[in-house]
């Protein structure tokens, strides 16, 4: 009845295919006892990382491939959900095997890594913005240059950045992730007790956030662009699924009613998004629905977005089974590799987006250049993921024993 059974259950289910497959097929595995990695998670996290990268670049033809153009939710939802899932899977196991204290320590170590990554990205951002401030004097944009005002007070700004209160555009995901990971020991501890109650509490916190408008303030003013009090719902839901919830829901997930409801919702959402791009269509949108629906709030994870993600996830689980052979095809290998090293690849993606902007501004801005930048960004992400995998494999061979004891922090990654 405890989550021990459920986690073990998952493990056994996961171990089965491991026997039939040579180990070389999944080189990143350091704990074969855990069983096969859930490649679907890696696949979709990799996909989310690519989409986040493309979304951070100025709009181009490639932007049409990103899912935010086809519905309410976007890559952030996928990313946070899978992060919750994998984190609970790895650290939940650690909590059962080594106790709450050790698991908490390991989680905090991971939080530290993410924090350092965030500070590193902030440094790059500072360099970029200082460069633009000194070089860019187009009289059309004197007003927008007001954004540089914070450079006049670097002491305050940098301290606020270290406190996660000053976060430039495109640097909101990591702080959210840091806060969610900080809460993870509590979440897991509570899940160990009663998973459903924990999920219920999470929903309650989400509702309270909407009702009483809870938020974290930011510097110099405003609030966090991703409200952790609301977004925790996805994270906790991911954790709940990882610790047995997904299996218990399997009957709901496989029912045809769910499938058709999901399809209907996705189609409706697609139509609504279509009206943003083809304004002529909005004639057919009742004004009352528009007024009720808008604005679709990303900061507080609008219910419409959450449901959209659920519908997407339900269809994915239904039509893409765990043992789908395509998961091992070389075509999807780049995505899976990126998903397996998500913290590194995420940071790289943010950096590449900065760099891409820079090239577009300084060299040329044509659509060809744009496509080239997007494509080479994705290739670089793939290449680096491959190198990391390779390095881990080599390092594991030389120090297999110590590595096994520590476990695979990377699977927990999410970062």
């Amino acid at each position, binding site marked *: 009845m405890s989550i021990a059974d459920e986690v073990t259950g998952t493990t056994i289910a996961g171990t089965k295919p491991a026997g039939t497959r040579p180990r070389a097929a999944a080189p990143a595995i350091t704990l074969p006892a855990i069983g096969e990695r859930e490649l679907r998670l890696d696949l979709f996290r990799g996909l989310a990382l690519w989409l986040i990268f493309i979304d*951070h670049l*100025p*709009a181009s*033809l490639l932007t*049409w*491939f990103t899912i935010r*153009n086809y519905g309410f939710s976007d890559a952030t939802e996928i990313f946070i959900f899978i992060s919750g899932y994998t984190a609970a899977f790895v650290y939940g196991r650690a909590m059962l095997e080594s106790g709450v204290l050790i698991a908490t320590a390991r989680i905090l170590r991971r939080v530290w890594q993410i924090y350092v990554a965030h500070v590193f990205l902030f440094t790059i*951002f500072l360099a*970029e*913005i200082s460069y*633009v401030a000194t*070089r*860019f*004097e*187009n*009289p*059309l*944009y*004197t*007003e*927008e*240059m*007001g*954004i540089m*005002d914070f450079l006049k007070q670097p002491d305050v700004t940098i301290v606020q950045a270290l406190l996660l209160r000053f976060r*430039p*555009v*495109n640097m909101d995901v990591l702080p959210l992730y840091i806060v969610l990971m900080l809460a993870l020991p509590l979440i897991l501890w509570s899940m160990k007790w009663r998973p459903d109650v924990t999920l219920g509490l999470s929903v309650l916190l989400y509702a309270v956030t909407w009702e009483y*408008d809870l*938020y974290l303030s*930011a510097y*110099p*003013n*405003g*609030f966090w*662009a991703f409200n952790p009090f609301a977004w925790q719902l996805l994270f906790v839901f991911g954790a709940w699924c990882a610790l047995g919830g997904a299996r218990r829901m399997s009957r709901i997930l496989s029912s045809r009613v769910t499938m058709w409801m999901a399809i209907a919702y996705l189609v409706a959402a697609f139509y609504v998004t279509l009206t943003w*791009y*083809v*304004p*002529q269509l909005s004639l057919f949108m009742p*004004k009352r629905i*528009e*007024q009720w629906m*808008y*604005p679709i709030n*990303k*900061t507080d994870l609008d219910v419409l977005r959450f449901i959209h993600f659920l519908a997407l996830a339900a269809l994915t689980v239904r039509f893409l089974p765990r043992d*789908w*052979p*395509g998961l091992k*095809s070389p*075509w*999807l290998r780049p995505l899976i590799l990126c998903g397996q090293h998500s913290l590194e690849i995420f940071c790289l993606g943010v950096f590449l*987006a*900065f760099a891409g*902007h820079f090239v*577009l*501004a300084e060299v040329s*801005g044509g659509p060809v250049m744009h496509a080239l930048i997007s494509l080479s960004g994705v290739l670089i992400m793939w290449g680096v993921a491959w190198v990391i995998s390779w390095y881990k494999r080599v390092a594991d061979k030389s120090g297999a024993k110590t590595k096994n004891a520590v476990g695979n922090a990377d699977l927990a990654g999410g970062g």
Partner: protein
Amino acid sequence: MKAKVLLSLVLLCGGLAAPLARAGDAASTPATTSPTTAAPATSPVPAACELPSYLLSSESQLPKVADAVKAGKPLDILVIGSRSTTIPSSESSSYPARMEAILKEKLPPSEVVHVSVEIQSKKTAEETASTFVKLMEAKTPTLVIWQTGTVDAIRSIDPDEFRSAVTDGVVALQKAGADVVLMNLQYSPRTETMISAQPFLDNMRVVAQEHDIPLFDRFSIMRQWNDQGQFDLFSPSRGPELAKQVHDCLGRSLAQFVIDAARLEPAQQQN
């Protein structure tokens, strides 16, 4: 095998989406040229200013402007803006001045058009809106064009607070008896990684919808020009030339937008 099917599906979807987006543009292009042909005698619209018609059309109307023009009363327009309303050291080339000139060309010669500008630099929407009651006592414009959002985006004001500030401002302006047009932020690709415009654009659209007032989508318009290659808004040029051309186009588009939103028939326009 299945992977290949999937891949080709993805490619197919992309291939379908791209022409779809293009088709949207193409379908609306003929409509773009019609305002130009309506007034052939006046200064021709530079090719650089061309826009798909959906960016210049609004379901909402400007009844007071329409009444004033039909009754032959003077048209008094007040532009409330910030630093991006003007070009430093060349006021006469800024978009309010250009709009005034174009309106005078397009409306009947008997029509008196007067545009005044109120600059509230470095003020948020809330700070600006708090001055409206006094401002509207001093001036009694037929139409107020309120351009806002940039300062709020720079300071990353809470979008909810921003929305209620804009709402309050619009209500105050309407109470004072004026038609209102909202104008959103500039498209500024250089600072795209630093200023998050989207929540502010979304909220201005919502306020415009709720109060049934026209929204002049400066952001999308400028992005259209940049994407179509009419202007290179990435340019680091220090000279005022680019700014002058962009403001000229903005002024023309805004004049056309006001005329269309007031549903002034071509008969009320010159020629």
